[in-house]
């Protein structure tokens, strides 16, 4: 339990650092992004239809039918644990009965999640499951949101297993439990029109960082023993080095979705380690020879 608390504390600190840096950059892409688009040039990754969604003036435009909705996914973009960031401009009309923003964990046209902002300075989180909407976080006023026609806001959401954290214009707005689909889903954007006319939402920068990237340096705890681990990519595999009790062991790893596995040999015995992405790094089990498995926590440095 203490480890969990410590991890959450570190996560909070890390979150603050990320947001602070992020606020200075907006949603412009930094190094290490999994997907990025500043919309300066149209790409075929977005499933635009040219009518309800299209590229114009260096932006992605969503223009649903009156009283309708439009969503555009990035093709073949399935992710489960990730940080999404987008800059979105509200429609020019003064109506406020609409919302637009991020779409994530999309498994098909009838099943996806949204994290939305409205021109009235509210945010909401909703889920479409089998074509039926469920409100996961009701429309809530948030002081950091810009409101009114043509207001631009930054939506930043982190999805991690069953936890969603939402930052709006750099300020934390929501942390809530929502179960992810087993393998996550595609991401994209979503917009609504007001009742009597087609509203236009403008998306500027959009970038995504997958959290299921094992490459890096970690502090490690295993059964009360502290140590370190480093992971570097080698083609489709990874080189893993654990340093525990002053001894280093090298292994080979592979990534399957949100699961990172590694094999190693030490003391003449073969070991297998499996981890899944956590708030602060990776958590999992290590088994060496015939010994019982130990839980191991990796906290990213």
């Amino acid at each position, binding site marked *: 339990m203490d480890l969990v608390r410590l991890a959450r504390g570190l996560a909070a600190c890390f979150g603050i650092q990320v947001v602070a840096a992020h606020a200075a950059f907006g949603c412009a892409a930094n190094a290490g992004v999994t997907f990025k688009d500043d919309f300066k040039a149209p790409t075929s990754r977005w499933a635009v239809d040219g009518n309800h969604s299209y590229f114009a003036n260096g932006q992605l435009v969503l223009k649903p039918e009156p009283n309708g909705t439009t969503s555009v996914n990035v093709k073949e973009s399935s992710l489960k644990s990730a940080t999404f960031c987008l800059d979105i401009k509200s429609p020019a009309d003064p109506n406020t009965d609409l919302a637009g923003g991020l779409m994530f964990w999309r498994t098909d046209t009838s099943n996806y999640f949204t994290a939305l902002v409205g021109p009235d300075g509210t945010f909401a989180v909703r889920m479409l499951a089998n074509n039926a909407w469920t409100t996961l976080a009701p429309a809530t006023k948030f002081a950091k949101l810009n409101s009114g026609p043509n207001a631009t806001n930054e939506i930043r959401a982190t999805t991690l297993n069953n936890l969603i954290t939402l930052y709006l214009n750099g300020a934390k707005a929501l*942390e809530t*439990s929502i179960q992810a689909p087993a393998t996550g889903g595609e991401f994209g954007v979503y917009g609504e029109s007001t009742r009597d006319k087609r509203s236009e939402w403008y998306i500027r920068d959009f970038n995504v960082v997958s959290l299921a990237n094992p490459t890096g340096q970690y502090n490690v705890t295993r059964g009360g023993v502290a140590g370190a681990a480093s992971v570097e990519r*080698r083609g*489709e*595999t990874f080189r893993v080095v654990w340093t525990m009790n002053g001894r280093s062991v090298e292994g*080979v790893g592979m990534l399957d979705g949100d*699961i990172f596995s590694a*094999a190693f040999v030490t003391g003449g015995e*073969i070991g297998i380690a499996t981890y899944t992405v956590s708030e602060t790094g990776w958590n999992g089990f290590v088994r060496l020879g*015939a010994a019982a498995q130990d839980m191991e926590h990796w906290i990213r440095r």
Partner: protein
Amino acid sequence: MKGAGCGCVLLALLAFAAVTPHTALACQADPFALFRDDFSRSNAELGPDGDHLYFADGQLALKPDLNNGWRLPIPRFKLLGASYCAEFKSPTGPADTSAGIMFWMVDAANLFTAMISPDGTFHVSRKKDNTWQTLLTRASPKFKIGPGAVNEIKVITKKLVEVFGAASRYSLSDNSVFAVYLNGQFVTDMDVLAPKDGGFFGLFAESGGSQRSEWRVLNFSATALPLEPSGIYKVSGSVGGSGYEGKVTVDEAGDAYAVVWSINGKSMKGTGVLRGATFAVAYENAGKVELATYAPSGIDWSGKRTNSETGGQVVAETWLRQPR
């Protein structure tokens, strides 16, 4: 019913030998869980109504009406083979109340439950076509009695495989098995005709006739379990554009699996572990450690192996289950 005379009983035993190691972990947070919630935050998708279901003190509260039950199916997730674990805090008041884990729920009229009562009684029941059938009722010495006592229920469900007719291939059996653990100790297992595609899962609580009971749930998790990997497989893959075929055997070895590849007269041995739907195997080849990971594909497996001889490139490999 397919496969009369199949080795279902044997396979059930095999399945639960693999389950045993999980008991040591109890409800310890499983990083590989498909669903897990410690209820420290409100979860709107669970449909809190402020009366029968609500969040309080970092816990989930279930408070059925008098003489009634309250179901909480976890939305969106339908499972056949799975491991479920939950910790329940008993209510104050009369003992004519129960709460537990619900699984293989097809609809409100067809489901299974494994439940406890504050007096130390343990119940396994099935609701079929809206009629309850008690499969087991017994007192458990492992049960903590009294108001506020915390008990852990774990249910593991497994689909079986069988070979039928003269076919040379295994197939899914119509039967499934489930095992129940209370506070980490095995209580019972049963071989039943389960819903073909599994069902939804969740929590269930009942109140007696004199008082609405408020059960608290401290945490709940569900981990999807693929078919048992133990068996014999025909293996095929390709290295550097050249295909290969051979045999793989997988046998239980404590809380892991011993894996042996036999390809072109060469043998490679490894150790595998099952994590959620991923079967990961560490093995040695020509003095170097290698890694393989597989995902279930029906009763078979497909995945990839590292190959030190090809640098960072991996080898795609498929395992097709064969009769023993």
